[in-house]
Every structure is written in C-alpha cells, then in structure tokens.
C-alpha cells in the first residue's frame, strides 16, 4: 500500500467535487465561481499540508508512486529516439531501455531502468529489477557511446538488481561490477538522473556520472528501508524509522556531495505534471551537457575520478574529522 496514493484519495474526492461544480457552472448559467474558488483554495491548502514537506518515508512512497513518470516518459521526449535491444549474448532485458536519441542539438546514448506502469508491464519489466543481461546491455550501449564520442544520459529507477537464481547463475555481481568500470572509463560526458527509486548497487551501475541529478522526491539508498529495518531491528515495520536513518533524500545526498543538482517537483509530486517535469529534467540534463561539451576525454574521466575520490567520512589518527562535502 502506497501511503501517497492513500492520501491522494481524499484529494481526489475534492477534485471531483470541484469538477462537478465547474460543469454545473458552465451549463446552468448559475454563478458558482465563488464556491469553486473556495474549494480550490481548500484543495491547495490540504495539498500543501499533506505534500508540502515530506518525510523520508513519504518520499520513498512518492518515489514508488505508480503514476510517477518512468524512464520511457523521459526517453520518448527526446527527438529521433531509436531503441537498441539486447546484450547480443543471451537475452533482451526489458528492465533496461536505451538507444540513440537527440537531446537538444546533441546526439546522445540514453539508457534507463524501466519499471512497469501496470501489472502486465511489471511482469515484462521485472518491476524494473535488472538482470545480468540488462547490465550487459548497458555496457554495450555505454561502449558504443564511448566509441563514437556520444554523451551518456541515464535515468535511474529501480528497487535494486534482480535477486533471482538465474541472475546469480549468470553472474549478477560481475555484470554490475563491469558497468561500474565501464562508466568510470567512458571517454564521454555522463549525466545520471535519479527519477524514482535508486536502489543500492543496482542503481549505482547506471550512475557513475560527471553530474548526478535527482528529482526532489526521489530517493537513493544503500538498502531499502524495509530491508534495513529487518536487519537492524528484525522488524520490517520500522521501515519509516530506517528511512530517516539512511539519509536517502535528495537534500541529504547533495550535502554529502553525491548529488549535484536537484530538480524541484510540483506540490503533490512529479506525476501531477508529467510533461512539465519531463521538460524540466531534459532541460537540466541538456544544460549540464552544454557545460561539459568543451571538456576533453581525460578531463571527463578525471572529473568523475575526483568526484567519487572525495566521497566518504573519515577520522584521521588525531581524531580530526574529515568532512566529505566538497
């Protein structure tokens, strides 16, 4: 059960009432504009109350919202998007979508994690959990980008890498590990955007980037709050508490130097204005690519190296704390 969806139910009732009044207002020549304005004000107030400031746990649910824009919403906003399929070895993993596209005036390679938007698509996409062949498709596309000097643009949205028997058999660890090296080495600009849930190593496999963008209510975490709560308190019910502990919000991660740009969402979340948020993300990524365009291959790889080289919290022998923020 998604707590954001639950809360929206109350608002939906209000929305319907406003819409009804609108219809009455238009057809019956009775002036209901006062009532409508009143309800709209109330609506905005409630919306602000329940969505104005979200806890970490609420953001987890926002990130998992079934209507939240998915990777394909962003990919299909690009010009001339041509999908490329498969790892050429074993299977086409539909949890990964990607190919060639044009972002602004620039040809790019785009790669996204695609979760399902309904039950049928959930099965096709394995709920956005990527299998080894999916990560190998990512490597193939990233290498294609590197060979032809095309920037890599990724969209991260996964609970985590697929934990099935087949994935272990086909070396999930190796598949993710190679992605990390491939992204570290790629002689082209990389911009990663956390558009929904960024789940652990399975998300990081697409997110070693020159610039990491994060939607305001997306989350990015070392472990799922449920998993963390089960391990720490042997009680998955304490997931809300774990979510606070894990520091998984965009603001937290910007403080740690992990996230570089935060894209604000409309009150109520990204799904309240899909074209708006998609446009804003695409524009942000485009502007970042502009700023990286003049850099040489070694400046780009060095840039990524120093970004990640600095992340961490250390104490020296003498007890001085070394802050991780850049």
């Amino acid at each position, binding site marked *: 059960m998604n707590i954001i969806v639950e809360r929206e139910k109350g608002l939906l009732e209000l929305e319907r009432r406003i819409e009804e009044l609108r219809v009455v207002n238009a057809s019956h020549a009775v002036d209901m504009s006062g009532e409508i304005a009143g309800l709209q004000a109330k609506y905005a107030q409630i919306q602000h109350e329940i969505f104005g400031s979200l806890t970490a746990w609420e953001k987890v649910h926002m990130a998992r919202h079934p209507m939240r824009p998915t990777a394909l919403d962003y990919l299909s906003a690009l010009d001339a998007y041509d999908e490329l399929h498969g790892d050429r070895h074993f299977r086409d993993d539909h949890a990964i979508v990607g190919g060639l596209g044009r972002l602004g005036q620039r040809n790019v390679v785009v790669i996204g994690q695609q979760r399902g938007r309904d039950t049928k698509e959930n099965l096709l996409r394995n709920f956005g959990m990527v299998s080894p062949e999916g990560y190998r498709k990512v490597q193939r596309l990233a290498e294609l980008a590197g060979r032809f000097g095309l920037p890599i643009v990724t969209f991260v949205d996964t609970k985590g890498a697929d934990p099935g*028997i087949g994935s272990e058999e086909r070396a999930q660890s190796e598949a993710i*590990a190679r992605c990390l090296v491939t992204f570290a*080495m790629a002689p082209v600009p990389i911009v990663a955007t956390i558009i929904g849930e960024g789940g652990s190593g399975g998300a990081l496999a697409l997110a070693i980037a020159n610039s990491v963008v994060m939607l305001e209510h997306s989350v*990015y*975490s070392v472990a799922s709050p449920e998993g963390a709560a089960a391990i720490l*308190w042997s009680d998955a019910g304490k997931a809300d508490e774990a979510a606070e502990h894990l520091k998984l919000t965009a603001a937290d991660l910007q403080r740690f130097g992990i996230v570089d740009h935060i894209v604000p969402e409309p009150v109520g979340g990204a799904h309240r204005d899909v074209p708006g948020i998609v446009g804003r993300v695409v524009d942000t990524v485009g502007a970042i690519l502009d700023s990286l365009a003049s850099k040489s291959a070694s400046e780009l790889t060095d840039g990524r190296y120093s970004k990640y*080289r600095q992340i961490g*919290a250390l104490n020296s022998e003498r007890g001085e704390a070394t802050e991780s923020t850049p």
Partner: protein
Amino acid sequence: MAIPDWLRSRRTERDDSRHDAALWTKCPSCAEVLYRPDLSANLFVCTRCQHHFRMSAFDRIAMLIDGDFTEIGSNVLPSDPLTWVDKKAYPVKLATDREKSGMTEAVLCGLGSIGGHSVALGVMDFYFRGGTMGSVVGERLTLMLEAALQKRRPAIIVTASGGARMEEGMLALMQMAKISSAVARLSEARIPFLTVLTDPTTGGVSASFAFQADIIVAERKAMIGFAGRRVIEQTIRQKLPDQFQTAEFLWRRGISIALSIATNSRRFSFACCRI
C-alpha cells in the same frame, strides 16, 4: 617493517590470549575436531575435508607476504557521519570490533612482496563488522590501488565481506564507485589486478572490485554472490540448493576459479606478477 616485527607491533592491539583460548576447534564443514596449531600450520585448511577456515587479515598477510610489509592508510579511521543508532550506536559497535579483532577497520593494506615479486596488497577481515565496506575500507583500498598505480606494481585484494556497511548509508555505497574508479585507472595503465575471493564475498564488494580483476581466484567452498541467500529464498519462495553461491558453483558457471588459497593462490599471485 619485517613481517614478524609488524605483527608484534600490531599484537599490542590484539587480545591474543582470548583468540588462542580454544586450542581445539571443530571444522564447520566435516565436524572434525582440529588442534589449532596444526590447523595454522596447514594454512587454515581442514586436514580432513580441505575446508578453508576464515582467516584474520593478520594471519593471511603473514601467510602471503614473504618479506617486509609497509602498511598503507593505517591512520585512516572511521567516523560516524549519519550519527547512526540502531540496537547500539555505531561508534560502540566499532569499538567492540576493534577490541575483538585487533583491527582498526575491516581492511588492512600495504606494500610487500610475494615470492620475490613486489605487490600492493589489501586484505579484508570478516571479524571486523563482517568485513563490511564503509568509508575507511573504500579509502584504504583506494590508497593501496593508487600506490600500485604510482609504483606500477600488481595489486592484489583478498575479499571477505557482507557488502556495503549500512551504518554509513550512501557514503558506504559510494565506496563501490570510488574503488571501481581506481581499478579503472589501474586497468588503463595495464597493471595486473588479482582478487582472491574468500568466505563470504557478497553484496557491494562482490558487485564491484571482487569481480573487476584481471584474474579472479576463489577459495574452495567460499560463499560468493550478489544477493543474500535469504533474500533470494524469500523472492522465489523455495529453499536454495546447498551448492548455490559456492566457489564451485561459480567455477562451473565460468565466473572464476575455485582453488585452495593454501596451495594455488600464491601460484596465481606469481602468475599475476608475470603478466
């Protein structure tokens, strides 16, 4: 510093009396009761079934390195960036494990030589926070890999880890990125990199440097995999076969090489130095 001196210097931090209290130990694999000094003389391999016992980083370094050993990153120590508390506070857990294992963190790195070949070496220790990787593991291993790059020496990492350390949140996850970036530089400089996967090697360690090496050696029967056994069993709602995620399982799947560390990991270290 020569290995015996280095071990002695470290011994002050280790409570040997407690360690050696039990002179006899039972093999977890075949249940044979073994005399500890015999076990140690046999390089921590069960004399009956070849089960490879978990080893402390100290014991493994003493076994692998044959000359001097110069530690790297020993002054890099953990902090508590998330002011983490679950059943206990994170700093309390760190202090307990420091006491218990004689380690200041879950990895020990340094420069030394194996069979006359100069190498840069990192050895993880399961007895410190289950070998989990936080900022210090990331920093020390990166410093070690950077030293390998600078001195153009082969790098070797012996893994033993439950994955990323939850108490450091995303800072722990980012160590995968940091170490992988250092591995990428090593690879571009064409410097050989070898990993020896010991029991257990899972999660974020498995899914990063463990599987990025030019040559990967795995200890017999070691548990090696990405997802935890329980997670998979919950997902598929059935019990997994015993052999699942063992080194032998990986070997059949073409992922790595299952070998006795006692005999062959030294040989592979030489092979690695040859390339």
